């Protein structure tokens, strides 16, 4: 039955993705004025022939419904058009940058979970203790702190003053690394290149903390409150009455059930990770998708922006699908 449920979710994602594509298509038509004129605005003098060529490349010379069909057809084939500024397929440009972005997002997720789990569990078990109050105040600060400012504070402290960690980039400029997967930490392990591994890891630390702080704060709060609720429930009382140790009660009986709301919230956090990624990449000069988009916006490279927004939305939908599947496995009640 679980399989049916999962298939159902997968099928429901298809119209959603179609809708996302349509909205992204409408984005470009929202520009005040002619997109080609705006894009050309920066490059100065161009011939009328050049403008005509661009208009037909973006299908702007065709009626709107035809434009939409051509766009959707392209999306279905994995063709998001050509970058206006770089004259390369948008999909290739995005694919080149995606590993850097995913590496950062995973780094942030790992940091977030590593911090959130012990804090959430300890705060719940020792409710109203000094540790609990302090960590919840910290979590509140983490939620209210804009990531760009946190990143700058971390740079000032750890890079400028203490000089422990690098300010910018993914890897030291003096280090050679053979790229295999595009994930520098993994590539350096695969090629046995230890200096590169250390360097890429050192570059990854501050951006991961910056991006992961809000996730850590939110997950810690959710984990704490759901654990608190469960620790008061009858079956936990029963486990205690039967003489199970406190550690065993929390770890074996309570935590698994507290995971259900936590995983749900984690799904929403993927959106925070993806959006925050643009900001954090800008702060740390991280050469990922977010930087590519922001640069594309300033160069008025509309096809590239369009393609990237689409990839972000699809990643978000996909991540939520994965969370749904996880949720189905964690929650026995869903098995109907």
């Amino acid at each position, binding site marked *: 039955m679980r399989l049916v449920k999962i298939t159902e979710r997968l099928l429901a994602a298809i119209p959603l993705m179609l809708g996302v594509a349509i909205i992204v298509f409408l984005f470009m038509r929202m520009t005040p004025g002619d997109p080609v004129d705006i894009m050309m605005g920066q490059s100065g003098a161009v011939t009328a022939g050049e403008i005509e060529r661009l208009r037909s490349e973006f299908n702007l010379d065709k009626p709107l419904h035809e434009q939409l069909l051509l766009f959707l057809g392209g999306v279905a084939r994995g063709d998001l058009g050509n970058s206006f500024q770089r004259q390369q397929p948008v999909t290739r440009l995005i694919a080149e940058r995606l590993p850097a972005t995913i590496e950062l997002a995973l780094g942030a997720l790992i940091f977030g979970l590593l911090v959130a789990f012990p804090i959430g569990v300890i705060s719940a078990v020792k409710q109203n203790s000094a540790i609990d109050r302090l960590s919840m105040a910290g979590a*509140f600060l983490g939620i209210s702190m804009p990531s760009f400012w946190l990143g700058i504070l971390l740079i*000032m402290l750890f890079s400028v003053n203490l000089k422990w960690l690098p300010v910018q980039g993914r890897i030291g400029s003096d280090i050679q690394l053979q790229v295999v997967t595009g994930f520098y930490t993994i590539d350096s392990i695969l090629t046995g290149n230890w200096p590169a591994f250390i360097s890429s890891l050192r570059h990854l630390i501050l951006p991961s903390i910056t991006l992961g702080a809000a996730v850590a704060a939110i997950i810690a709060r959710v984990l704490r409150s759901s654990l608190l609720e469960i620790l008061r429930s009858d079956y936990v009382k029963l486990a205690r009455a039967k003489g199970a140790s406190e550690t065993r009660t929390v770890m074996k009986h309570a935590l698994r059930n507290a995971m259900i709301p936590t995983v749900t919230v984690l799904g929403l956090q993927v959106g925070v990770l993806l959006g925050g990624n643009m900001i954090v990449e800008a702060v740390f000069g991280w050469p990922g998708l977010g930087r590519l988009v922001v640069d594309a916006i300033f160069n008025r490279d509309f096809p590239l922006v369009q393609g990237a927004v689409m990839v972000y939305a699809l990643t978000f939908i996909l991540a939520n699908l994965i969370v749904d599947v996880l949720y189905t496995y964690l929650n026995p009640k869903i098995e109907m």
Partner: protein
Amino acid sequence: MATTTAQTDATWRYTWGIRWRLWRRNSGEFWRDLKKHPAAIIGGVVIILYVLAAIFAPQITWHNPELGNLRNRLLPPVWMEGGSWDFPLGADAQGRDIYTRVVYGARVSLAVGVLAVGISVIVGVALGALAGYSRGSVDDVISRFADLLMAFPFLIFAIGMMAFLGPGFTNLILALTFKGWVEFFRLARGEIISEKTREYVEAARVTGRKHWQIIVHEMLPNIVQSIFVLTTLRMGFMIVTEASLSFLGLGIQPPTPAWGSMVAEGRNYLLNAWWVSTMPGLAIVGLVLAINVFGEGLRDILDPRLKIE
């Protein structure tokens, strides 16, 4: 159903009389509960201070927020060597007083926050009430559209819209509200659906009141508290989003002082003038923290059921 004007007036006075007394009792309870949340009170006071600073910005500052003198370039804050009371928080790379710019920056943040959330509330609650009350195809269409917007991470959507609309205040509000209404829609729709099963709605129908009257006069007053709580909690989020967009250079454009762009301008001087980025950042954290603390206190008091994220 034919009722005379005198009759309607009497029922009108009667129902509003009850409502007034209920409100008096509830607000008494509210203040009593609020006293148990000292953090929320502090948050509320801080918010009021920010609002006052924004309103009286010209009275409490003494420099031009947009024009500086290069002679005062990167002047340190008053407590550091070389600082002066004329520039309490120091000066930026163009010699502008940071204190003045931080105070004026509150105008931008609060205006964006209030407008973006305000429009989102009005649109979201109106559509939510319509969808939840009528159900059927109207509900289907709006709900599908809301689901679609939910498929975009908020910041990505706002950045995408700003990319095509171009920067500026109006476009910023448009980009933030285009998706911002969805959460209010979902809340209002859910609440209206559950309210509709209650007897008072049926009773109002029997007395011949119109649908819109029932929604506006009978149902909305019952869900206004949870909407208010969500409004507060979303306000902090909108302010951070505006600051993030301005930080990227997509929001409020220089020289207008906005906290996000001020932090961005200070990035080049982290080594020798840390205060340029730090001060506006502190202003954002202070305001957002106050709003969130206040909002959580309100939630505990008014609507403990509502938990977001």
